[in-house]
């Protein structure tokens, strides 16, 4: 009888361990995702538009990948969040401001030097309108292929003084400010990504942060 009890104990223990392992696998690993930043406006706020503020940094500085480039999003309360899932309202004008702190890597495909899918076809760089960017000066792009949006972001020169190296970067450091507007259409979830091979040290510059949600890739949730 004692051996029967022992067997029951071992089997129970093994089942519990297995169940915990599966639970960990699903809940912690598979369901893990970067935080969502919501830009949904309050109920009555005039014409359908909203403001989104992002910044790109050369290295995050902390966390599991301190050396990776990344986007950061500023939530409506003004706090910088290391998240790339942006929630915006449908059928609205989205005014995007990107504070670009990273150096230039150059576009692999110079096709992206011309911003597309944005209102007026023109982006504003440091206050001046620009219809096309020299591909070698691009540091990142903000592109939503399913909406036809793609905007190259001008990089900070390599020799510029006072460069920011650890996120989140304050506006006192050298940066370029790029603004543009696009129209969010029907509700849905759209991916966005960067098209500049900016992942330092990875083959073709497209590994690491370029393939990880929360760094150079994200979702635009249009609700």
């Amino acid at each position, binding site marked *: 009888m004692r051996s029967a009890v022992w067997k029951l104990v071992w089997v129970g223990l093994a089942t519990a361990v297995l169940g915990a392992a599966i639970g960990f696998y699903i809940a912690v690993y598979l369901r893990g995702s970067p935080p969502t930043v919501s830009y949904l406006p309050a109920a009555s706020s005039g014409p359908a538009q909203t403001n989104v503020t992002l910044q790109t940094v050369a290295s995050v500085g902390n966390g599991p990948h301190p050396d990776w480039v990344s986007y950061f999003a500023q939530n409506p309360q003004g706090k910088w969040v290391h998240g790339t899932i942006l929630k915006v309202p449908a059928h609205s004008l989205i005014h995007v401001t990107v504070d670009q702190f990273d150096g230039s890597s150059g576009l692999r495909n110079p096709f992206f030097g011309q911003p597309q899918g944005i209102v007026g076809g023109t982006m504003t760089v440091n206050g001046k309108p620009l219809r096309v960017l020299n591909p070698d000066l691009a540091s990142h792009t903000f592109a939503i292929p399913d909406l*036809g949006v793609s905007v190259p972001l001008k990089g900070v020169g390599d020799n510029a003084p006072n460069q920011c190296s650890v996120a989140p970067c304050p506006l006192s450091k050298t940066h370029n400010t790029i603004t543009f507007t696009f129209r969010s259409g029907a509700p849905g979830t759209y991916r966005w990504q960067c098209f500049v091979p900016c992942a330092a040290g990875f083959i073709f510059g497209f590994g690491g942060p370029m393939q990880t949600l929360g760094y150079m890739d994200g979702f635009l949730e249009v609700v």
Partner: protein
Amino acid sequence: MSMVSGRDEPRGHAIRLFTIWGVLSVLAVVLVIWVLGPQLPPGSMTVQAHGQTGANIVLTAVCVPIALLVVVFFGYSLVAFRSRGLAGDGPPIHTNGRVMMIWLASTVVIVLGLAIWGSWELLPEQTGAGGGAGPAPIYKPAGARAALPIQVIGEQWLWTFRYPTYGGVESQQLAIPAHRLVAFHVTSLDVTHSFWAYKLGVKADAVPNVDNIAYVDANDTGTFTIRCAELCGLWHGHMYTTGLVLGPSQFAAWITKTRKQYAFSTHLLPPFSTHYFPQPQRRAG
């Protein structure tokens, strides 16, 4: 049904079996050719797709009777030769050289026949195959010299299309003219992708530094889906777009509009080439 069998019992079984198989096969082949056939992918939007659908019909029509032979044989045997009681042992059949020879001969004939037919179908006088055939395809359709070249550039994670004979304009939207031979030059800027426009009957791997050519001749106007068919990273499943087949005048209007739309970026592009070295290869620091 006695299992202590005489000479004619097996023959009776054989006749019954082959009758059942024959009837089912004829029925199945008729269904395959006339009912299933028109539904089989990839359809008839292009000459190549039509040829592939025809090939699918022929192969299915040949394979279904063979599959039926195995299934009906086993089904019949399971029903007819079940042991009835303790005395139910079958005759000591160990081998039958004639059956083996007939089987081997017929499978060789079917298989070689299909291989020869398949090779013949690849010839350009037939429909050719719509798949990517490398930088120097040996099976080129008639009029390949005058084909409209369209470069399909796959990169992580987007398809763009370049028209070298229209000023080298690059566009995110693919449009091809109907009733005109088009040569897709598929290449990649980074990892291996695969340009898969199934309604056109085209699947061609986009490999860096390689010019993979696939010919297409569209019969009808319409739209088609383009997907990436080779795992290429995070957004592989999102490398999805829609292409257009336009009539000749519509295509001329479209290309003019596109050239105007992308005028700025065309200045930035390097000269047209069948492949582009991904630069930079590895970014340091």
